[in-house]
């Protein structure tokens, strides 16, 4: 194993050697630099591998043949090795990436780069505070030099501001160092006695030392200079600063915080939180990509500083957590900066150019996911453990703030991704460097690699080894295949998985598995209608299905949450595919992530930090009647309610479902919503009733359900957009299901189960049908259609069956749901919420009739006369659904009987009596077959009568109607469709007022406003920045002083 000292020696040697070369030997100089950095990287990585695999022991390197503290010593441990690997590799890649700029500037620039990397390594290795200072100054000077690489004229000014601030930091450092030395009689970090946090002499000296190091981390709000560097410097340099320098500086701070002892950790926590929240908040108002990345870097480093502040509770997990976040951030941020070097424009929307290069787009998505700690990347495991440690140590405020900050960050990052995917873009990449491209890919690979390593190190098992996820990721490789081939594979995969897993499931799991996965396969039939390659569809869709598959399989809270995140991401990318869906996809992902964080907090709270936490243990918590039980319940419930789009969290749904592609709408509506129900069902199954401040939370849920059912229906009848109408009706239907679940009785759950199945069937069917119509008429506005029955008879039939089923009119399956519903409410105490449900029933009838009438009946428009029936691939699943609906209507027992028995087992209540064909509850009875036959017979008889009486009725033309004794001349004027329920609006229009939208809108607006206001502290004046740094230091000093005394 090569001693780490050679990393430094090599760096210095190379630097001087390059100086020796002639100005014109640029090639040679470049080679030397490359060799040196390569060597340094090789040493670091080999150490990391050796230490991680335990084949080598940590090494202390002494210099001058004298033991510390009398001579400077270095240390190479696991953490150091990891950090060095990141730093040196970043340096190496940056060298390649910046090669043209560096060559242009001459060999000296190369020397500067190499020495910068050497200095950063020294920062990590050294155990001597003054030596630390020396390396710091080296970093400062080198950075100051590299800033010149930028062709941006403003960079020089930025560099100067940076030097000004570094002067102040240097002063503080030196004062701190010398007094610490005076107090301890040693400059060695390991000798820094843990001073009680008194502010006499040493304590204060230590404070100056720490605060100086913290300022080096560019903490909000004393960081204007850093932002200017990030914005103006060459992207390669920014990458280096953000990935390597910040990482090294953070470790330096970490070393001293570790030495300073636990009393100082709160300082790190608080400063970190301020930085994390502040920077992310201000990021909201940014339009310049590099500056935005700067804000995000500052935020992330702040987050790691928070982790540093938690080292007392993290224990052995400390390196795992801190490393997970820090490394992922380094890789992702470097990658993003490198991409920004390829993107010509500086406005966020200019990233739309990435669309011309799918690989870069994929990289972009990957890096964002890494930054946000989404699975399967390393940050995910780290965030999970962090949350659990915080919850375990009752540091809930910290947990809450961290999650809040993460949510804000998600806000601007995903908005940005939306821009990239949806904003107008040039047809091709102007000027595009292949080396840069390669470097980006390297970073991407690194990110995935980290994800794999962290997964391997996780107690929960490696997500990247989960079969469904692998299957989904495989589609990334298969992208070049034609859509039909991928579709075939996808369907096979889904069915295969269900077939493979189904035997192990209990009836309830089985129902969900069939609806979500087998059901997904059925919907995928419609995807055959799409020609071409359909880039990006299958990976997203399959990630969503993988998430669903894992969700059903989940045994522990971790597996559940990981699956939850996966299906959220997948569905987000799916929804984002829609033409107009940019804002809706954003609000979807934000609500979903918010919900996910609530779930995370809930699980963390429940587990009390002990992992792995089996889902069944929720029951134990409930039985133990711990005071935190209701809170766990509340958090988890909130998380799931965001997914079911219950009223209050519903505003994302209409846009998201309505703007999605034809075959995506049924997936996200018919299938995805069920994930929320699944979660709620698990929750209620395990935790049962919980009451908070005397309020029975299930009672609350009943109200929310009823309210959703009602509001959803009312809003649906006022829509002019067919798909929005269906979307709102989904809110209503989910409300029914939630209502049923929350009734907490046997029939209530059966009701919910029936809604899970029915809603999947008829909503998927209707979305496909309406989607088919839209693809023919190119509009979603119902009043622009009309009279399509003759042109699209099959579509009409499926819509007809769909609405009969949904409205609960006998004989179709919807009625069964209503019947169970009545029996359920009769055996429950709830009275008032029922009123809302009663009301929403007939209202559903209104919007459903509007749907079928204004599209298929009434007057056919001239421009639609030549249309054709929807594509056969769209009709195929619809016909399957029609068949199923009728079958399910006649023989509901086939599906429900086992489930019924299972639920009965859970409640210890008597199941329904499934005698022969009739179903009997303790209150009433119901015989589907008889109903079907009776109605059928009567219908046939009456029809026969009619035919007998006027078989010779003649078919007349469209306008042959009695119209005030006149013949209408235009379908537009004759088709009564727009604002169809005007009287209703007159009577109940006030229910339409968008209070919820205003509420959330108000929150986001105020966030943006405060961000835009606050960021004006960065006046751009170097002097002001310097003053801000001092203010920051003094302020913290006074606060801590106050805290101590």
């Amino acid at each position: 194993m090569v001693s780490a000292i050679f990393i430094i020696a090599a760096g210095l040697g190379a630097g001087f050697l390059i100086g020796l070369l002639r100005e014109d030997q640029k090639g040679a100089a470049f080679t030397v630099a490359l060799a040196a950095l390569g060597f340094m990287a090789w040493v670091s990585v080999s150490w990391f591998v050796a230490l991680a695999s335990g084949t080598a022991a940590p090494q202390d390197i002494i210099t001058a043949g004298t033991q510390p503290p009398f001579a400077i010593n270095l240390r190479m441990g696991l953490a150091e090795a990891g950090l060095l690997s990141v730093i040196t590799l970043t340096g190496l890649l940056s060298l390649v990436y910046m090669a043209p700029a560096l060559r242009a500037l001459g060999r000296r620039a190369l020397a500067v780069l190499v020495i910068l990397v050497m200095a950063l390594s020294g920062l990590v290795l050294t155990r001597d505070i003054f030596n630390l200072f020396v390396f710091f100054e080296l970093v400062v000077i080198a950075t100051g030099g590299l800033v010149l690489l930028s062709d941006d004229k403003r960079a020089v000014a930025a560099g100067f501001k940076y030097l000004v601030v570094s002067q102040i930091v240097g002063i503080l450092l030196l004062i701190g160092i010398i007094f610490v030395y005076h107090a301890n009689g040693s400059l060695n970090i390991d000798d820094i006695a843990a001073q009680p946090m008194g502010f006499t002499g040493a304590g204060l000296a230590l404070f100056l030392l720490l605060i100086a190091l913290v300022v080096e981390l560019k903490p909000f709000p004393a960081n204007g200079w850093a932002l200017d560097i990030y914005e103006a410097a060459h992207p390669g340099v920014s990458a280096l600063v953000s990935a390597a320098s910040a990482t090294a500086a953070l470790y330096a701070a970490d070393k001293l915080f570790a030495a300073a002892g636990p009393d100082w950790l709160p300082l790190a926590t608080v400063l970190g939180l301020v930085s994390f929240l502040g920077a992310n908040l201000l990021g909201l108002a940014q339009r310049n990509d590099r500056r935005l990345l700067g804000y995000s870097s500052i935020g992330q480093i702040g987050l790691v500083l928070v982790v540093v502040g938690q080292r007392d509770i993290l224990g052995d997990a400390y390196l795992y957590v801190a490393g997970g976040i820090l490394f992922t951030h380094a890789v992702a941020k470097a990658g993003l900066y490198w991409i920004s070097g390829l993107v010509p424009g500086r406005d966020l929307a200019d990233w739309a150019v990435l669309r011309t290069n799918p690989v870069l787009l994929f990289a972009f998505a990957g890096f964002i996911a890494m930054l946000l700690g989404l699975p399967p990347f390393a940050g995910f495991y780290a965030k999970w453990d962090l949350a659990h440690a915080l919850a375990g140590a009752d540091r809930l405020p910290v947990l809450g703030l961290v999650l809040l900050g993460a949510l804000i960050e998600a806000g601007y990052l995903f908005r940005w991704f939306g821009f990239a995917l949806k904003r107008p873009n040039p047809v091709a990449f102007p000027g595009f460097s292949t080396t840069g491209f390669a470097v980006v890919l390297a970073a991407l690979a690194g990110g995935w690699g980290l994800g794999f390593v962290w997964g391997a190190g996780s107690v929960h098992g490696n997500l990247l080894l989960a079969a469904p996820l692998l299957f989904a990721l495989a589609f990334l490789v298969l992208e070049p295949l034609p859509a039909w081939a991928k579709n075939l594979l996808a369907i096979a995969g889904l069915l295969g998985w269900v077939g493979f897993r189904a035997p192990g499931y209990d009836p309830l799991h089985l129902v969900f598995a069939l609806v979500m996965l087998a059901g997904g396969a059925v919907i995928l039939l419609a995807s055959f209608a799409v020609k071409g390659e359909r880039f990006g569809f299958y990976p997203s869709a399959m990630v969503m299905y993988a998430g669903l598959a894992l969700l059903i399989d989940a045994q522990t809270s971790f597996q559940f949450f990981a699956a939850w995140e996966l299906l959220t991401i997948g569905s987000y990318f799916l929804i984002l595919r829609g033409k107009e869906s940019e804002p809706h996809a954003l609000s979807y992902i934000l609500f979903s992530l918010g919900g996910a964080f609530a779930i995370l907090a809930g699980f963390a709270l429940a587990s009390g930090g002990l992992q792995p936490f089996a889902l069944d243990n929720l029951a134990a918590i409930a039985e133990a009647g711990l005071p935190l039980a209701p809170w766990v319940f509340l958090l988890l419930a909130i998380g799931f309610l965001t997914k079911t789009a219950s009223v209050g969290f519903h505003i994302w749904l209409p846009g998201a479902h309505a703007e999605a592609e034809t075959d995506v709408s049924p997936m996200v509506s018919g299938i995805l919503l069920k994930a929320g129900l699944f979660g709620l069902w698990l929750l209620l199954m395990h935790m049962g009733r919980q009451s908070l401040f005397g309020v029975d939370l299930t009672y609350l849920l009943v109200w929310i359900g009823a309210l959703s059912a009602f509001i959803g229906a009312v809003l649906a009848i006022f829509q002019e957009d067919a798909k929005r109408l269906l979307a709102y009706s989904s809110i209503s239907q989910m409300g029914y299901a939630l209502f049923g679940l929350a009734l907490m009785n046997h029939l209530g759950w059966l009701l919910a189960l029936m809604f899970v199945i029915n809603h999947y069937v008829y909503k998927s069917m209707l979305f496909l049908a309406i989607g088919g119509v839209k693809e023919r008429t190119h509009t979603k506005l119902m009043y622009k259609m009309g009279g399509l029955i003759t042109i699209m008879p099959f579509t009409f039939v499926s819509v007809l069956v769909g609405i009969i089923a949904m409205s609960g009119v006998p004989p179709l399956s919807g009625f069964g749901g209503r019947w169970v519903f009545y029996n359920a409410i009769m055996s429950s105490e709830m009275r008032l919420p029922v009123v809302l449900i009663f009301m929403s029933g007939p209202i559903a009838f209104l919007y459903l009739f509007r749907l079928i009438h204004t599209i298929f009946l009434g007057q056919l428009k001239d421009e639609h006369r030549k249309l054709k029936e929807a594509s056969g691939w769209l009709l195929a699943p619809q016909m399957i659904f029609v068949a199923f609906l009728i079958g399910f209507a006649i023989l509901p027992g086939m599906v429900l009987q086992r489930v019924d028995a299972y639920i009965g087992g859970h409640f210890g209540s008597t199941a329904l009596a499934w005698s022969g064909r009739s179903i009997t509850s303790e209150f009433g009875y119901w015989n589907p077959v008889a109903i079907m036959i009776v109605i059928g017979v009567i219908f046939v008889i009456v029809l026969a009568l009619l035919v007998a009486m006027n078989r010779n009725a003649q078919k007349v033309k469209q306008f042959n109607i009695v119209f005030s004794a006149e013949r209408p001349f235009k379908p537009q004027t004759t088709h009564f469709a727009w604002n169809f329920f005007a009287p209703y609006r007159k009577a109940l229009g006030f229910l339409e007022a968008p209070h919820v939208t205003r509420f959330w809108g108000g929150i986001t607006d105020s966030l943006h406003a405060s961000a835009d206001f606050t960021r004006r502290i960065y006046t751009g004046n170097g002097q002001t920045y310097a003053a801000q740094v001092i203010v920051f230091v003094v302020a913290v000093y006074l606060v801590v002083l106050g805290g101590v005394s």
Partner: protein
Amino acid sequence: MHLVAMAAGFALILMGLFAALTHRNILRMIVGFTLANTGVHVVLVSVGYMPGRAAPILDDAVPVAEAAARIIDPVPQALVLTAIVIGLGITALMLAYAYRLFRARGSLDIADYTELKW
């Protein structure tokens, strides 16, 4: 005595910072920082100083045997040398930047270089 030196050092630092924070002329700012650095160096050496002892050089005056009792703390002196050189380096760099800025815009007013903000 030593306190005087140290106090003077601190005073220098504050004065330097005051200059650097109030003068908008870049050169004056640099001078201010140099002043502050000098102050830091004074503080550094004053920490090592011990009344009534000799410089840490082992010659006939200070035989090796009794060195420990006779000399002052050598470490700060070693440190201060490094600090001085580094301070010099940064100052030189700042001057170069100042020159470059002046070339670019013909102004040395720090307030004129605020295109980057927010």
